[in-house]
Every structure is written in structure tokens, then in C-alpha cells.
């Protein structure tokens, strides 16, 4: 099992060219390894023979038409969905039916949802300290100090004592990001974090995600924000009908896509 410090290992930020960096990584740098994974919803084969490796500090953007299985794929990584065949190893722990493995992985993997899923009966601060106190058994004072630091980072410390229902969508999503970060995860999963937001609020959430990426967080994002993919991603993965169709660095992906299906998708979302 890979033991890593609680804070994400910083990656050199000047290193923007993805391919040589990936090539120079050693094997134990792989934090998510998915091998020949398949999933069915009843008789419907929703994920087909997925193999994917994510390295520490890497930023992956998953895109594809709706129903292509991209959300299902990242929800398999923290076992919100169960896969039926193949292997998923996260941070050295294999996802099996063993509840302890699942809980161990969920402690290290943060997730941000399309619909925020904040707990409406708790204040912003209580939302943030709940898991550190009950799962990590931290003293309340320590958890609250970190929560306030992170709320400052997402630029809403003044909302700490409000309830989620009193915040705007963008503010709620930033709270959701802070809530995940409070568990000091090694990996962050983003499931269409800006899809439910009004246009003028998308930027504040993307800015938060970009600053997180700049600090070296390992990120897997399902998003339709191609601008974000271009500036932040190390790799862009295109999925269709439950398969990984194409996988490349953002420059090549956007300027010279190999697959016809990718070309069609890009022309649909970029030209209108």
C-alpha cells in the first residue's frame, strides 16, 4: 500500500507538457488503477472493458455525450456504484465487497456532485466538520480551524454560520468543495460540478477547481467545460457508449482528434 503524507504531494507547476512527465513517473505513482472493468445495469452493459490509470497529481477530464457512462465510471471509483467484473485499485486498496476497504477508500477520495448535496439541516461549518469529527475522530476545535481555513480558500468564510438553503448555487458548490477538502483527500472526483449552475456562477466554481489543480491535487473531473479541460487537464478522455474512445493530452485532443466520434462530439459542443 502506498503511504503518502496527508497533504497532496506537490508537482512541479512549470511542468506543463504532459507526455514526458507521464513517461517519467514510476509505477507506484499510480493512485487509481482500473483494469478491464465492466458494469451492467440489469441487462444494460453500461461500462465496457474500461482500463484507466491515474497518477498522483494528475488532472483528468472525462467528457462525452450524455449516457456515455462517464458519471458512472467516476462513481465506481468510490463505490457509489458497484462494478461487476475487472479490478479497481485506489491508493493501493482494491475495491471489493469488504466494507472496510470501501470505507478506507472513501476516506481518501473526495467527491463533488452536480447537485451539491449539502446537508440542509446543518450550517455550512457543521457540513464541513461533520466527517472529520465522526470519521477521522478529530477534535472539534482542530476540525473547525481547518474548515475555516478552507472556507477562506473558497472565499466564503463569512457564510460559515448560514444554512445551505440561504446560499446561491455557486456558493453552495464551493462549500461542497470545501467540505470534501476538509477530509484531506488524496484524490478529488468532480461529477459535472458546474452543470446545475447559472452561467454567471460557473466561473467562481471553476476558479476554485483551477486553484486546487495548481496545488497538485489529483483530480478526475466529468465536465463539459472545455475551457477548463484545455487549461487544467493533463489528459482528456472521451467516452461513448460505455467505452473509452479516445485519450490524449488536451492540445492534441482538441486540435487533432483521431476518432470520428470524437470529432463529431467536439464539433457539436464547440460550434454553436
Amino acid at each position, binding site marked *: 500500500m502506498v503511504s503518502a503524507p496527508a497533504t497532496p504531494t506537490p508537482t512541479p507547476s512549470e511542468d506543463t507538457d504532459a507526455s514526458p512527465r507521464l513517461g517519467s513517473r514510476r509505477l507506484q505513482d499510480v493512485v487509481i488503477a482500473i483494469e478491464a472493468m465492466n458494469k451492467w445495469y440489469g441487462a444494460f452493459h453500461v461500462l465496457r472493458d474500461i482500463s484507466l490509470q491515474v497518477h498522483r497529481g494528475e488532472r483528468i477530464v472525462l467528457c462525452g455525450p450524455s449516457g456515455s457512462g462517464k458519471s458512472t465510471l467516476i462513481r465506481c471509483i*468510490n463505490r457509489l456504484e458497484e462494478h461487476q467484473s475487472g479490478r479497481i485499485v485506489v491508493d493501493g486498496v482494491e475495491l471489493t465487497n469488504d466494507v472496510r476497504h470501501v*470505507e478506507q477508500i472513501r476516506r481518501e477520495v473526495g467527491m463533488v*456532485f452536480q447537485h451539491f448535496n*449539502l*446537508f*440542509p439541516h446543518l450550517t455550512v461549518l457543521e457540513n464541513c466538520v461533520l*466527517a472529520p469529527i*465522526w470519521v477521522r475522530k478529530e477534535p472539534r476545535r482542530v476540525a473547525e480551524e481547518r474548515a475555516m481555513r478552507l472556507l477562506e480558500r473558497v472565499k466564503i468564510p463569512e457564510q460559515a454560520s448560514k*444554512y*445551505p438553503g440561504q446560499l446561491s448555487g455557486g456558493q453552495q458548490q464551493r462549500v461542497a468543495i470545501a467540505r470534501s477538502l476538509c477530509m484531506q483527500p488524496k484524490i478529488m472526483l468532480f461529477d459535472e460540478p458546474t452543470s446545475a449552475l447559472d452561467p454567471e456562477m460557473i466561473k467562481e466554481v471553476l476558479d476554485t477547481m483551477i486553484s486546487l489543480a495548481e496545488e497538485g491535487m489529483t483530480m478526475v473531473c466529468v465536465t463539459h467545460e472545455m475551457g477548463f479541460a484545455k487549461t487544467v487537464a493533463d489528459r482528456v478522455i472521451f467516452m461513448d457508449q460505455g467505452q473509452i474512445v479516445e485519450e490524449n493530452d488536451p492540445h492534441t485532443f482538441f486540435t487533432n482528434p483521431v476518432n470520428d466520434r470524437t470529432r463529431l462530439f467536439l464539433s457539436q459542443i464547440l460550434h454553436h
Partner: protein
Amino acid sequence: MAVFEAKPALPPPVLTRGPVGWARQNLLSSPLNVGLTLVGVVLIVALVVPAVDWALLNATFRGTTADACTGTGACWPFVTTRLDFFVYGFYPPPERWRVNVLFALLALVIVPQLLPRFPGRRALAVFGFLGLPVLAAVLLLGGIAGLPFVETGKWGGLMLTLVLAMVGILAALPVGVVLALGRRSKMVVVRVSCTTFIEFWRGVPLISVLFMASVMLPLFLPEGVNFDKLLRALIGIIMFQSAYMAEVVRGGLQAIPRGQFEAAHALGLGYWRTMGLIILPQALKLVIPGIVNTFIALFKDTTLVLIIGLLDVLGSVQAAIVDPAWNRVAVEGYVFAGLCYWVFCFGMSRYSHALERKLQTGHKR
């Protein structure tokens, strides 16, 4: 050059504000409303005036026998002379202070719950849930600590009603929550047994449950084994009401969006913490009206213990009515019993409204 001068503020028209404005807007806004208002006034006069006449103006308040009631109104001495019986039943008079102590403790726990900023309110609530039932049992039953033993057969009146209702309420909620969680469990054995339990108890009338508990059960028990009639009635009430409570709580659980479970799981919370910290607080808040509805129904259903010979408030009133020394006094007794129930049920209703307002935290997703 013209100089601007503000016009002085005028008082608003008298007919749009205050009581006159309110009456115009709410009572007299259209010909139909004028008509309805008139009908209402006539009804009120026709019903309330005779009621007040009977209950207060023409009523007899003093006296100790039926002969004192000479007026045309209510004969309240019937209630006042038997008040002790209506409150304590056959509880031995020298020991009635124990019941009074319990009433005081009950007030001590309940009243602070109505005052939002009372210090130690939560500690008192925890005591009310965990300590008070045990203390009440010791106090009322006795047999230890120098208190003479008082068998439950002698309990009665308002005190019995409160014992049945409080024990029923305190037990039915937690049992109902567990049953509701069980019915939604992924484990087949747990789910099937909870569903069977709920459907069985919801399918039989309470009166037959009590009757079975009191009459049939002893026939099946071996010779010499006999447990308390009140305890049997209590268990029957708890089983019955917790099945209803379970369905109310399940309604709340189903209203919680899946995203709440997913967010809790994604943060690493296990099943019990997800339920205890995230799902149940929201679900129970949603169904406060249903929970209190069940509580009120439970409170009033305690009158059914009459059928197995336990004398609660209503039972003791009915027992007193047959006294030949007092004739034509049935109504006074029933009015008294009705008032007792109404005070408690209305209190619960108001408390639930206050609780809903207090727990309101903005919009729900």
C-alpha cells in the same frame, strides 16, 4: 425660481386600517361574505350563549351533594367532589403525594421544552427520555426504598391516562424508527420481518389487541405464570402504535433525496452515522405533523383500556356516573373528561407547530 415644498403626510383612510379595515376586508368584502358573516354570528349566538349559560352563569359550583344543584345549569360539585377519584383512581390516599411528585417532575421536564432559551433544556429532555420512566415506575409502584407497594390494579384516572400515553409515546417513536429503517433495509430477513410486524399490527384494531392481551393471553400461558394487566395493555399499545409510527417515519425517509445518502457515503460515513446524523434528522423533521398526529391518536386511544377494566379518566368518570346519588350529571363528567384530553392534545399540537418553525432552515432540496 420655484421652491419645492413637500406636501404634509396625511393619515391613511380610517376604513382601511385597524379593526374596521380588517372587518371590511375579511368579513364584509362581498355580498356572499356579508351573508356568511351574518350566518356565523347567528350560529355563535345560538350555540355559545346557551353553552356559557349552562356551564357558567346558571351553574352550581359549591356544595357536596346532588341536592346543592338547584339551578338549571351544570352541576359542577359532581366533578369537584370526585376530583381525587378522577385524578388518582383507587390509588391509596396516603400515597397520592407520590403521584403529585411525578406530575411535578413531568412539568419540570416539559415546561422548559417550551421555553427556547432555558438553560439545561437538553439535559432535562434526556432525563425525560431515559431517567423519568424508571423513576416513575419506582415512584408509582413502590415496594422499595420504604415506599409501600401499590399494585397497578389500583392505578386510575388521569394518572393512568398519563402513564399509558407517556410510556406509549416514549417507546413508540424509537421502536417505530427502528422498524422503518428495518423495512427499508437491504437485508432480506430484516426487511421481511419488519414488514410482517408492521402489517400485522396495523391490520388489527387496537381494541382487539387489548382484549387479546387481557383475556386470551392468560389462557395460553402456563398455570401460575401471570403478568400484570397494565403491563400487557402497555405492550399492546406500544406494538400497535409503533407500527403506525414506523409508516409515518418511512414516509419521511422516502422523501430524502438519494444525493444525501451519496454525499454521506462519499465522505466515509457508515450506515448508522449516515442515518443518525444526516437522514433521520431531516426525515423526522419532515414528518413532525405525522408524528404528532400519531401521538395525539395514541393519547386518545388510551381510553380503550376501559374494555379490559382499567379505569382511566374517562373510565373513572363513567364509573362515577352510575352513582344513584347523583342523577342527570353525565354531561358534566364527560365535559370534564373531554377537557382533560383536549388540554393535552392541543398542547402537543401547539408544541409541534413551534418545533416546525424552530427547525426551519431555509429551502429543502
